[in-house]
């Protein structure tokens, strides 16, 4: 489903005279369809950057990201033309972080329903599904019409998760989406994600909490800092 080969990221900071900052050292891994892979390693080893490279928020410096796409067949996400990448984001690839980065002044219900609408669902169905999912994530019904920007951190995260999983993406990238959730909420999220995995969604994830990681991950890939990687391989 997803094969990452020799992927690395280096940032060039021009106003510092072209200073090079390593995001992460070259790495390779493969995730089978319906399986989940956890990235694990110390802070600063570029775990989040890896997910951003797969999602194309960062441009890869080296390497390929081969992805088995339903829309376009086998593609390299590092090279795929932007309009196609946009299409994949709308149809196949979900990405969720602990930060709610959504439009201001859009209600929670509409926010969560939007991916379904974009995929062609009618408004009523999309809203009904959004409500059901938010209810399952224990978002109080009276908040459905409120703007998530005003929600608590935990509520925002749950809205965020709902938005990412409602359209059942083929590939889901998770970057600590449960960072500030209470235990009960985390259990629900883990349950939802496991259901999703059971239905064939492939996942690449970052969870610091080993319990969550163990509950969700089929494979664990250990990331290393650039220095370690250089010392080991160079």
């Amino acid at each position, binding site marked *: 489903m997803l094969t990452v080969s020799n992927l690395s990221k280096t940032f060039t900071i021009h106003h510092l005279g072209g200073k090079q900052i390593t995001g992460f050292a070259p790495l390779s891994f493969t995730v089978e369809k319906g399986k989940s892979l956890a990235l694990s390693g110390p802070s600063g080893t570029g775990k989040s950057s890896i997910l951003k490279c797969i999602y194309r928020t960062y441009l890869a410096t080296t390497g390929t990201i081969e992805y088995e796409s339903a829309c376009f067949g086998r593609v390299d996400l590092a090279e795929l033309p932007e309009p196609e990448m*946009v299409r994949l984001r709308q149809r196949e690839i979900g990405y969720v972080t602990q930060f709610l980065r959504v439009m201001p002044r859009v209600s929670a219900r509409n926010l969560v329903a939007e991916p379904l609408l974009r995929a062609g669902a009618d408004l009523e169905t999309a809203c009904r599904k959004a409500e059901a999912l938010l209810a399952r994530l224990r978002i109080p019904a009276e908040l459905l019409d409120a703007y998530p920007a005003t929600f608590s951190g935990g509520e925002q995260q749950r809205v965020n998760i709902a938005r990412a999983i409602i359209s059942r993406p083929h590939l889901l990238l998770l970057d600590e989406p449960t960072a500030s959730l209470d235990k009960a909420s985390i259990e629900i999220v883990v349950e939802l994600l496991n259901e999703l995995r059971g239905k064939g969604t492939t996942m690449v994830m970052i969870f610091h909490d080993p319990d969550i990681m163990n509950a969700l991950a089929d494979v664990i890939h250990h990331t290393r800092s650039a220095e370690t990687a250089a010392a080991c391989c160079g």
Partner: protein
Amino acid sequence: MIMSRPILIANHLTKRYGPGCPRCRDHTGAQHNSNQCQACKTVIACDNVNLRVFPREVVGIVGESGSGKSTVIKLLHFDLDADGGEVFLEANGKAKEFIPAEKNVLELSTFRKRQLRNSVMGIVYQHPHLGLRMNISAGGNIAERLLMSGWRHVGDMRDRSALLLTRTEVPVERMDDLPRNFSGGMQQRVQISKALSNEPALLLLDEVTTGLDVSVQARVLDLIRRLQQELDVATLVVSHDLGVIRMLTTRTLVMKNGQVVESGLTDQVLEDPQHPYTQLLVSSALH
């Protein structure tokens, strides 16, 4: 799945003010931080810009004043004549009869250009007085575009105007008032109504929220986003405001001194900018 054809393709779009000379390229552009040729004093407003917009897509052009971003929109809307390049437009409706898809529309007669513009494009300018006639009623302003497209029934035009004004949250009872008596935000809403009146396939937004109060800006942006979702119209958004670009667009081009210095998915341009100028732009933005 095969991607649909772009609704708009612009290749090597160029606009200059002055005679131009062989050395213009050596003196202008982002790396020279100038758009004026030292040799012949020609100002290169827009140099070799390439652009594609797919159906239902929202593409942004970001840059500072004088970067040439508004020039691009004015060239595409035929408000200015290009000095070079070609533009292909997927014509719809009536325009389809006389404009084949492989025709460079910059070569059309002014008459055909206007027909094409009327049937395919809608534009919202930064300054409402560019897009609206201030001494003609709000409804009349919308009707003008319909009249251009051959509407000849006053009642139908008023119904359509009322619908559009409702959609853009302008009180319908103000339909017969003059826009000059409207607030800036409401003038922009009327402009948006006018731009959408002929159901354009391509909407051009030129700094539409610049100069509005922050809360009014937010409402206009919300409106554009909502209409964007409802109408599925392909949109080109020009703004110097990264917040507007982030909120509205999926892909972005960064312009400086008349040239496109970088383009990519909007979140990539904002989070992993490649060009020194984009890095400066992003790091200077207030968050």
